[in-house]
């Protein structure tokens, strides 16, 4: 049976851990609010651009000479690029693990194809590098301050490779922020671009040729998608971390309660034993 001192020591240790998890939760909560605001602020632009793309694509397909833009070219998917966005850190429950599992399953399903990886976030990079997948690009430490330029840079290399037919398709794996309590893992095809459908085609006066506008609109659309994915992932990570740390804090409470109960039992037992000893000692003297 552990002594009272041993149990007390354990209680103290759990309490210390609890203080750390509680602090981590608060820090995540504060950072989350900022990340959420930024993700929200990026929405109007993304929404308008998407609408515009739909309208321009519609007009370009009517007036164009039938030539499809290189980013819309559909080829048989033999060489696939996986863009995997994970976090740089852990301690966020299943945040990284679930996403990596989804990407790995995709890789297993496409064993016969030539797969390359664009790893954004340390956790995903480490995982796929350890399993000797081919990582062609890695971007670490981008979440602290997500910039549009970062997304532009990532997209530029992808577009170059796609135009040179080094890759036939690009899939994006990312945690999408839903609410603080939940985020969903999502797999979306980035390339070839799936042009959103126009709700109500508008008869525009075009300042430039529709094909010309479409040509510059498509890369920008990808930029926005990656940028939004980065922001959402950053917010989802902080939310997952906050939730995980909250759970850890509550678990610590439970452990402390259990240990305290056990400690009291042990103390009671030792008191009872001492009384019995005293009483039986006195009885022996009579």
């Amino acid at each position, binding site marked *: 049976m552990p002594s009272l001192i041993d149990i007390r020591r354990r209680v103290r240790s759990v309490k210390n851990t609890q203080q750390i998890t509680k602090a981590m939760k608060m820090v995540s909560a504060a950072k989350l609010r900022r990340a959420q605001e*930024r993700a929200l*602020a*990026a929405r*109007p*632009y*993304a929404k*308008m*651009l998407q609408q*515009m793309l739909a*309208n*321009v694509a519609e007009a370009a397909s009517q007036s164009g000479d039938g030539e499809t833009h290189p980013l819309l070219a559909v080829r048989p998917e033999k060489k696939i690029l996986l863009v995997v966005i994970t976090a740089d850190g852990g301690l966020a429950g299943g945040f990284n693990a679930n996403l990596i599992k989804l990407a790995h399953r995709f890789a297993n399903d496409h064993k016969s194809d030539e797969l390359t990886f664009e790893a954004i976030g340390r956790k995903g990079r480490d995982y796929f590098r350890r399993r000797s997948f081919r990582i062609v690009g890695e971007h670490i430490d981008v979440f602290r301050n997500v910039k*549009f330029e970062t997304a532009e840079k990532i997209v530029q290399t992808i577009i170059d490779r796609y135009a040179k037919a080094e890759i036939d398709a690009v899939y994006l794996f990312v945690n999408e922020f839903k609410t603080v309590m939940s985020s969903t893992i999502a797999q979306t095809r980035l390339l070839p671009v799936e042009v959103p459908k126009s709700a109500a085609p*508008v*008869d*525009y*006066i*075009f*300042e*430039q040729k529709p094909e*010309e*506008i479409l040509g*510059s*609109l498509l890369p920008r659309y990808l*930029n*926005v998608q990656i*940028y939004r994915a980065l922001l959402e992932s950053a917010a989802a990570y902080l939310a997952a971390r906050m939730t995980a740390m909250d759970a850890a804090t509550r678990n610590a409470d439970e452990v402390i309660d259990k240990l305290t109960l056990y400690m009291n039992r042990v103390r009671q037992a030792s008191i009872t034993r001492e009384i019995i000893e005293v009483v039986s000692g006195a009885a022996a003297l009579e």
Partner: protein
Amino acid sequence: MDTFQIEVVTPEKLVLDQRAEFAEIPGKDGYIGVLAGHAALLGELGEGALKITAGGQIREITVSGGYVEVRDNHVRVLADKAG
């Protein structure tokens, strides 16, 4: 004077969303003047000063790169940079 809604957004944030009487927009191939009731228009944005007249006041924002769309008395300026 009739007014229209004008929105200026960048990838990072919504810069402004207000009513205006007149807007002078730096298009890629020259300035575009917009009054209320303008026909639907879509074009690329150049670099320069975006001037918005509202209530006699002229507001100036420097924009560069992006797109401008006019539709249903609503002007949307999607700028790469604005400020």
